Structure formats: C-alpha cells, structure tokens
C-alpha cells in the first residue's frame, strides 16, 4: 500500500506533514493542529482548490484562477488530469478535457501541449502527465508551506480505491519530483471514515459504513466494515456518469434553453466554446448556491453574441430536472450494498463525501433508502457532519500525523500485505440470552466480517443470580419480511423494544414503515447457528452481571472467558482452530 519515493525521505523528527486529497476536479490540503485536522486555505482563500493549471504569458496559475482561464485561455489550461496518471492513452477517458488542453498520446503515457513560456514565438511545450502532476503538487505544497511557515516535507495522499499499482507509483514519483515524500497512499473512502471516527466524540464501534464519495467527474461508493476501529472494504462501485458534471450539464441545458426562449434570435450558447465555458462555470456556481439556499441566481455577461443573460432557479425545479442523476446515485449506492452481500438494514452509517454531496437532495434520497436508524452523515441531514469536501483531506492529515514518527521502513512493513491480509470471520460469534417471551435470542459479540485477531467483551445481565449458562454460538442474520396487518397500530410496543435492542447490539434493526403504512415490514433478525462452547458461571449475585470476553486469534482459535463482574476467578476455555 505504501510506497516511498526513490530517494530517502527526511528523518522522522524533521518531517512536516500534511494530508492531501488530490482529486480529479478539486484538491485539498489539511494539517493537524492540536489533534484536530484543519483544511488549509490557499492564497486565494480556497479550501477546495480546483485541480487545474493554466499558463498565460509564461505565468503559471493554479486553482480557481486557472479555472477562470477556462473561458479565455482554454487551450493552455490543463484540467481533470489526475485520473490519467500512470495510464496509457488508450485507456483514458478524455471527455472532460474537451473544454481545456487535450490529452495526447506520448509513448507509454499521456501528455498535454501548452504554451508555458512567455513570448509569441516560443513554441508550445509538451508536458507529460507526471510533469503536470508534479507542477500542481508543487503548488499545493507551496501553499501549505507558506501557510504553516515551514517547508512541508511529507504527506499522506488519498487515492481512489481502484487506483492500481502503476497509477500509485506514478503519483509517488510525481510527488517525489515535487520534493514531497509520500508517507502513504490511503483510500479516499477510508480517509473520510477516519476523519469521522477520529472526532473526539466518536466512539469505537463495530459498524458497517457506506462511504459515498461523489465527486466532480466520478462517483465512488465503498462499503466498509469498521470493526474495532479497523476498516475492511467489502465492496466498491465506481461510476463516471452520475457525478457533479452531470448536474452541471442539467443546469447548463436548462439555462441554455431558457436563454434561447428569451432571445429568439441568439445562437445557442452551447455551440460556441467560449459561451459554453461561461455557461459551465456559472452553472457550477449556481449548483453550489442551490446546495445552500432554496433559490439561486444565474447571470452571465455576454453569454452569446454579446447578449447578457440573468435568471433564477429554485431548488425544487433543480431537483426535478436533475432527477435522473439523483436516481442514478441512489441506484449506485444500492448496487454497492448489494455487491457487498448486505442489506440496507445492515448499514449503520452513510458517509457522504466529495463536493457533490453538499446537494441536500442526495442526502434526503439516501435517508429514504436506508432505515431510520442509519445515520446519514451529510450537512443537510446531520448538523455535526463534516464538510463533505474536506473529510478526506482531514483523514489524510490525521493519518499523516499518526505515522509521521515512523521510519519509512516501518511504514512499509506495517502496510505490508502480510500484516494487512488477515482472515475475517464470516459468521458472528455471540451468546444466547433470553428475551421477555422466554425465547432464546442471539446476542452478537464478535460481528461478522471482523478481522482476526479480535477481542470483544460484553456484560450480560443475570438479574436472578444463581448459576447461569454462557452458551457461545455462531450466528447469522437474515431479513425477515412481514406483511403489515391491516389497520393495526400496535407498533408502539414492539418498536420501543426494538430501539432498546438497537442500543444493545451493534447491529440495529428497524423499519421505515412509519410514514408509509402500506409497505411491508422488513427486519433484520439473528439466526442461531452452531454451538461453539458452553460455560457455567456459578453463584452469581442477584442483579449481577456476567462479563463474557471472546478472543479470536489469528489462527481462528477462540478463547472464551466468562466471570461475574467484580467477582473472582471465572471460567476460561480455548477452542482449537480447525
């Protein structure tokens, strides 16, 4: 996973580290201050820095300044190049580069031809993709160094989960050329999850997280099992259709039609490159405005044929015309859950990350898909949510600060496949307890997809005291579907019990039938599987508790200990591995 540059990096004590999210559309830089990750604003005051370089008269511009040059200087502006790193020309998608410098084939890699030197007679130079990335990273690091007041030496950079080794190597090499030591490359969804889990109020829980990273040109969804603070990616899906630019396109079409309606004689602004660029820039800012307010204005001077255009749009209209894109995102998330072999009921948290996640409709759509107990971590649904554009950079900065004291060799060893690849138990391991109805129910202690070695401890009550049986069993879930009984409203009782259930176990079961009563009721229930061991704890005090601790070793042998809380001795037994 981790790769270090060819040359030896600085000593751990001399490192100044930051986290970088190097995105296809926007990038961010973050650092850690007082154990809290902060995203750094660049010279222009931007925290989301467009991943764009532009050359005008030999001057290099980057970020928002470069983005503005897409209108007037598109052929010398390089945009959307991150995904081309380490790829061959035949396997890249140049769609988004239509309105900027076009990628060209050059040997094994991709290059851009731009005039990066001053003077009319100067020939345009051909920049390889790695050179472009190096120049851009240098600017990012320069901004960070300026902000921090010391030279940034090392960074953790986030990459999509489907970045292959060649792409990673190309990124590390580009960073090394920019005089930046890459401590580690981490996956974007995991960085976002880490940013949430590192918040002081967060508790370590076993949970299933869906990270929907909705970016400008691509959307990636990852299903992550978070077990004791360790993350395992269960499934990922990648999509290049339903992303930010698709929403921009919807608005562009909308306003172009509006413009043509108002100015019958004018040319379609979508047919002129410069008009199109203006339309695109303004559409994007209108989209951003619609994420914050319910109304947004759109105004472009001299949109087409010197005709100015101004209009407004409300959020409802926007959501209507962009419905296809939103539904595409819904389907994407659902397909990811399905790919992981899970049900939406299994999901405990949905983290929305990436700029497009600001859109309130996406979050509210997702909260309709997932049960109510699932937390949708987006600004419009959860006030404490992190800024989706910043979560990954924060995660990278946190990871950077965690490993900055490690020698490069230590990082490499710690991230070696021998350490990261471990067995994950397929079935849950838990104990049997008795519910009010006197039925045996399964109480999960080690949830499925937990990486071993793992250790979990629960306290189970024994209200009657005396001798109790600790029966350790395997368990699994299935989705129980019950058709609603017509006109009965006894939901109240069972629901209260269920909420309690949800607090006890890590997995929550719930229904979302509250509003729509006709819908069938789906619940997640635990099925008791094969028995692993039985232990008897004798002489428990009335109202006492029994502590059950299960440790699964890396060879899949299991150690079970059971003792009364506060009591002495206890029972301990080992199950050998098969």
């Amino acid at each position, binding site marked *: 996973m981790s790769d270090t540059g060819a040359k030896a990096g600085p000593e751990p004590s001399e490192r100044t580290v930051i986290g970088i999210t190097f995105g296809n559309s926007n990038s961010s830089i973050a650092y850690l201050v007082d154990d809290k990750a902060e995203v750094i604003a660049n010279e222009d005051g931007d925290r989301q820095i467009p991943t764009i370089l532009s050359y005008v008269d030999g001057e290099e511009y980057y970020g928002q300044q470069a983005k503005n040059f897409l209108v007037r200087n598109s052929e010398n502006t390089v945009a959307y190049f991150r995904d081309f790193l380490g790829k061959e020309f035949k396997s890249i998608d140049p769609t988004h580069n239509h309105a900027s410098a076009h990628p060209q084939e050059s040997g094994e890699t991709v290059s851009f031809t731009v005039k990066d030197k001053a003077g009319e007679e100067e020939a345009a130079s051909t920049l390889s993709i790695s050179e472009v990335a190096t120049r851009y990273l240098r600017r990012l690091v320069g901004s960070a160094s300026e902000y921090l007041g010391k030279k940034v030496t090392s960074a953790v950079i986030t990459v999509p989960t489907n970045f292959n080794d060649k792409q990673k190597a190309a990124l590390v090499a580009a960073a090394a050329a920019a005089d930046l030591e890459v401590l580690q490359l981490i996956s974007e969804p995991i960085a976002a999850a880490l940013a949430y889990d590192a918040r002081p109020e967060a508790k370590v829980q076993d949970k299933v997280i869906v990270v929907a990273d909705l970016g400008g040109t691509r959307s990636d969804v990852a299903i992550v099992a978070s077990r004791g603070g360790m993350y395992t990616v269960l499934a990922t899906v990648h999509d290049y259709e339903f992303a930010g630019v698709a929403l921009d396109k919807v608005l562009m079409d909308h306003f172009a039609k509006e413009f043509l309606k108002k100015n019958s004689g004018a040319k379609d602004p979508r047919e002129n490159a410069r008009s199109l660029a203006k339309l695109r820039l303004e559409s994007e800012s209108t989209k951003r405005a619609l994420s914050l307010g319910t109304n947004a204005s759109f105004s472009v001077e001299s949109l087409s044929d010197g005709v100015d255009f101004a209009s407004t749009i409300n959020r409802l209209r926007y959501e209507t015309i962009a419905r296809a894109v939103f539904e595409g995102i819904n389907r994407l998330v659902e397909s990811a859950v399905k790919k992981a072999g899970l049900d939406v009921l299994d999901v405990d948290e949905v983290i929305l990350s990436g700029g497009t996640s600001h859109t309130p409709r996406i979050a509210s759509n997702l909260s309709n898909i997932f049960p109510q107990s699932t937390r949708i971590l987006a600004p419009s649904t959860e006030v404490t949510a992190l800024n989706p554009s910043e979560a990954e950079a924060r995660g990278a900065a946190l990871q950077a600060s965690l490993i900055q004291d490690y020698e490069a060799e230590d990082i490499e060893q710690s991230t070696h496949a021998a350490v990261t690849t471990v067995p994950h138990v397929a079935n849950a391991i838990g104990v049997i307890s008795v519910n009010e109805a006197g039925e045996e129910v399964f109480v999960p202690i080690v949830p499925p997809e937990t990486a071993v070695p793992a250790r979990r401890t629960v306290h189970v009550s024994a209200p009657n005291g005396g001798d109790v049986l600790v029966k350790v069993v395997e368990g699994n879930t299935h989705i129980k579907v019950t058709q609603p009984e017509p006109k009965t409203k006894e939901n109240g009782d069972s629901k209260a019990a269920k909420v309690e259930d949800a607090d*006890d176990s890590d997995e929550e079961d719930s229904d979302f039938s509250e509003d729509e009563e006709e819908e069938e009721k789906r619940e997640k229930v635990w099925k008791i599987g094969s028995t692993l061991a039985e232990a*008897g704890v004798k002489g428990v005090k009335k109202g006492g508790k029994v502590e059950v601790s299960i440790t699964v070793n890396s060879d899949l042998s299991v150690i079970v200990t059971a003792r009364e809380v506060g009591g002495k001795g206890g029972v301990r037994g080992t199950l050998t591995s098969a």
Partner: protein
Amino acid sequence: MEATVVPLPLPALPEGWESENNFKAIGKITKESATQRTLEPVGPYFLAHARRARHKRTFSEDDRIQAQERAKKVEDNDDGEISEPEDPMMLQREAKDWKSQDHYKVLGLSKYRYKATEEQIKRAHRKKVLKHHPDKKAAAGRADDDNFFKCIQKATEVLLDPIKRRQFDSVDEEADVEPPTKKQLAKGNFYKLWSQVFRSEARFSKVHPVPTFGDDKATKEDVENFYNFWYNFDSWRSFEYLDEDVPDDNENRDQKRHMERKNTNARKKKKAEDNARLRKMLDDCSAGDERIKRFRQEANAAKNKKRLDREAAEKKAAEDARLKKEAEEKAAKEAEEKAKTDREANKKAKEAAKNAVKKNKRVLRGSVKDANYFVEGDASAATVDAILGDVELIQAKIDADEIAALAGKLNGLKVADEIKGVWKEEVERLVGAGKLKEGEAKALGA
C-alpha cells in the same frame, strides 16, 4: 473497545449441567468460514494491529507494553532531574545574604548551572515553592519561617532575568574548572583535562560555536584555529555582581559617586585580571601541547628537507663523477692491453706469413729442381741459372698469397711437363696482368 452491556438476561444453568472447569468446548471455527480480506492500513487501531502483528504480541501483552510506555512518558515529564538533596546548611540561609548564595544550588540545579534552560529553572522554582512555601511551614507549626522561601524567590529572580543571570554566571565559581596541575598532567589525560577547562571557559564566549580542544589526532588547522580563537577570545564576562553596595541615599552624593567610581575601577581591574588569567592559561596549555611540538618538528623537518636534499644531490654528483672517472680509466687500460696483444699477434702472424712465403718460395724453387730444370739429363749451369732467375723474377713480381696459391698448385707435382705447364700458365697470367713484360721469364714461359 469498551465492553457493551446487554440487558437481556443469560439463561439459567440447566439441571444436571456439569463439566470440568465449568467449560465445555463443543464447536470450532473452521477455516472455510473465514474470508481472507485486506484491512485498510489506516487509523490508530490499524497501527495497533500492525504493532501486535509485527511484534507477535497478544492483546494483553500489547496492552501491558503500551501501558508501560505511557507510564514511562509521564515519568520523563517528572522533574526527576532537578531533585537533588538539600544541604541543611543551605536551608538556614538568610535571604539578605543573597549575593553570596549559590542560586543554582538553592533551586536544586547545581549540576546544570549555566546550562540550565529557562524551562528547567521555572520547573525547579515551582517545585521548590511547593515544598518550602511559608504557608506550608506554618501548617507544620513553624510560623514566620520564610527565609529559605525568600532565597528561592531571589534565586529565581536572578536566574530568570537574562542580564542578572549573566552577571551571576560571570562570577559563578562553582562552574569553573581549574586548569590541571603538573601532577595531574603527569598521569596523562592532557587532552581530556584541558578540554574540560576550555569547555567551562567557553560559556563566556560571545561567539558560538566555540572550537573544541580536540585530541591527539586533531589536524594542524584545527589546533591553530583553536588557539587563534582563544587568543582572540571575545568574552561577555563582567564583574558587576561583585560590586560593593552603593549607598542609596541622597545625602551624600560624593560618597555615592566615589563608590561608583571605585566599583567601575574594580570591574575594569577584575576584567583585566581575568583576561590575563585566560592568557596565562593558554600559554600554559600551549606550552604543554604535544601537538604544537609535533607540528613545529614537522615544519622544521620540512625546512631542513631542502638543505638535506641539496647536500644529497652534491654528494651524488661527486660520487657520479668518481665513478665516471674510474670507468674511463678502466676503459683506457683495457684498450692499451688490447693494443699490445694485437701487436704481438700481428708480429706472430707476420712472422708466420714470412715463414710461409719462405717455405712456398722453397716449394717453387724445389719444383723447378724436381722438374730437373725442364731438361733431359743434367741441366747446364746456364739453364739452371736462367730458370732459377725466372723463378726469382716471378717470385718478386707476385705477393705472398699468389706465391702460396702457386705453391699449392706445384706442391705434389712430380712430372716435369705438368710443372712446366703450371709455371707457363703463371707466366702467361702475369704477362696478361701486365706484371711481366713479353719476353721476360722466357726460360719458364717457353
């Protein structure tokens, strides 16, 4: 992870459930029921996992080691280094004698002295205050016992003020290292002892870094650098701290000014003394410095080398000349001897040639006699005479080699005609060569 609480009760132990150790192992987790997946190497819990995996620790071992490491960190933060035993005499000090007190010792920093950081001084002060605060003494039944507390306050006041601290450090004799005595040096350790002296002396330098004394292996450049630095030492040492108290009253201004002048002079004098002391110390040190001696010897050796080279060259030239002369003499002698032997050999060869000619001539004469002077019967005296006269004539006309060749032809011939043929042939040859005139030696050529 903390233990979660399950409110649902555990079932009661069934009747007749019995097992050794109260534990029955029934099933096991099979390898097939576990999936190999890759953990994301991110986050503190993964790093803990990696640590356990790499060091092959179990959870409880790792917990213990981590706890120990954390505990150690706390200990490091503790002020262990500034706790030194307090001298009971020191605790009796009066605060008004603060000029004579050792501020570092009061704060328990005597092993750090001028090296103590501000942070250390603050921490030491806090620690001492906590211990010696008058309120605490009062609680122990000793009211109004704030003498040592005042000492602490004074020490902190001096040490936390950079100017006052320098003044104190200037006269802090405890930090001085005395130059080594001859007796000490006699045991060796020259470099170590002097290094300590200069290290302590270096605290007064305005310029940093101060070159180190080095050791036996130091280069000439380093050593020169060191002595140059110290002979031009720029010191901030000053002696205000030893000033006599200036009366602080307005009544006697003259007295005050007198004291001030006196103090200024005293400072100047002390400063001059200090400079002299340093200079003497350096002189002493350089006098005993083996390196300087060695470098001087090396320099001398370099100077002498030229002269020695010249001498050697001269000596070599003389030797060469002598050898050449000898060789010439020897060659001359050899040449002489060779000439002599050659002469003798020539003489012998000439004699041999003469003898051979004589012998050949005898053969020539003998041949005509053998041929009976080419006549039948007894030859007349005139014939004999004519024939011999021709033989003589021919002999005179030809040289030794030809005589030898002719003799070779005649030798062994007995028949007169053959002999005559040879002679005739010879005569004709000579005539042809123009050595004989036609008609000469007609007795033989006929």
